[in-house]
């Protein structure tokens, strides 16, 4: 969804942080994307390459850290791995799952100079 506008949000953060953290160029952006965040890593890469032109991130590489989805299964009382929202619990086959991880969509760190 809306990867292009998210890429613009990344650039905005980079520009704001440039003043706060005193850097002029960004070399690497490490972005965490959860499996359940509704964001396609490939579309993010494409979008970032487009929006970074002519900015302080022109030379920046986008490194994506994919975070697996996890959920709490109520009947089993344990944390289980899920790849999609509608996955069943791999142990009991039920759908009473509360997503606990994998919704991340955040810039984790930067390499700057």
């Amino acid at each position: 969804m809306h990867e292009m506008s998210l890429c613009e949000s990344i650039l905005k953060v980079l520009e704001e942080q440039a003043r706060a953290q005193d850097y002029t160029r960004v070399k690497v952006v490490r972005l965490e994307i959860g499996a359940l965040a509704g964001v396609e890593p490939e579309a993010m890469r494409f979008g970032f390459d487009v929006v970074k032109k002519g900015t302080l991130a022109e030379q920046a590489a986008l490194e994506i850290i994919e975070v697996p989805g996890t959920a709490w299964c109520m009947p089993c009382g344990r944390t289980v791995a899920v790849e999609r929202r509608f996955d069943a619990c791999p142990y009991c086959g039920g759908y009473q799952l509360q997503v606990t991880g994998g919704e991340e969509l955040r810039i984790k760190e930067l390499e700057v100079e």
Partner: protein
Amino acid sequence: MCTVCGCGSGTMTIEGHEHVEEEHTHRHRHADGTEHSHPHTHEGEHAHSHEGLVEHSHVHRHADGTEHSHWHTHEDDHPHGHGEPVEHEHTHGPAGDRPRYSGDPVAFGHGHAHHGHGPAHSHAPGMSRTRMVQIEQDLLAENNRYAAANRRYFAERGIFALNLVSSPGSGKTTLLVRTIEALKGRMPIAVIEGDQQTSLDADRIRATGVPSLQINTGKGCHLDAHMVGHALERLNPVPESVVMIENVGNLVCPAGFDLGEAHKVVILSVTEGEDKPLKYPDMFHAADLMLLNKVDLLPHLSFDVERCIEYARRVKPGIRVLQVSATRGDGLDEWLAWIEEGARAAAAVRRDTIDALRRRNAELERELAALKARLGERT
């Protein structure tokens, strides 16, 4: 343009309407000729102090032209003047490699006597000054801040706000018109319409006699909380009303954007196929209520209602489902009752708050009167 949904650029970067304190950087020159800069915020005056053990980072420029940055703490308050030499004491702990911010590890060990640095402090004269900055910043944080402001706006006025989402052609506007016609005599309603282009929907809503405002997102594929905040300023809905926000017809993008609403309501028509909840799980997961619309057409279709509801509950256990027909009127009573219940609850919270404030005000006035009386006794 976005390869997934066709969402174009330029619609998300509106200047902020909330005046958040801006961080900025100042450069200081010390008596020994060194300079450093650090970011800070102002609260109305051009000086600031560090209370207690406040950690922050400084970038220092030394006389030999090298620069470095490090974290340190202040134990005492001190003013920072600008434009003149100022001396102050810093205590540097061994925090040069503080987790959020670290120097280039290759360049360790360049000690110097500038007011007592800890051991982990680094310089890289003549070398690459590439460094890591850990910022842990959520990409939706900005939208979420605006959404929180909208939510406060609704709460203060006792407004029950709904974010209606669906694919194009689900019958959302027809349902909305039916809903407004049934409810407008009972409670004030205002509508925010989101579409890429045209004001056709807002015109349809205005024909019912309730205030309505159209947001055209241009190339954008969803409404965001900032646009809705501006729309609320112009629409100015009355206290204890219902605000319906009809989002852009799209089962993907609006799921990620909180507008400050009480609930997302997803509308799915039976002509779309029962597998939509599995195909677009994020949207059905984000919604609290699913309206299964156009049920009057079921005899002509092979739509499996039970299966559809089961799919919806897979992605959102506990999602409420109502089967409705905007044209024939099926299920509308339940839907209207659900809205009225929510509106009553939102208004009740506001009244409780107002009552509590009135009680507190009366209490303070009594205290003031008692104090004035005592003051009168003395003089």
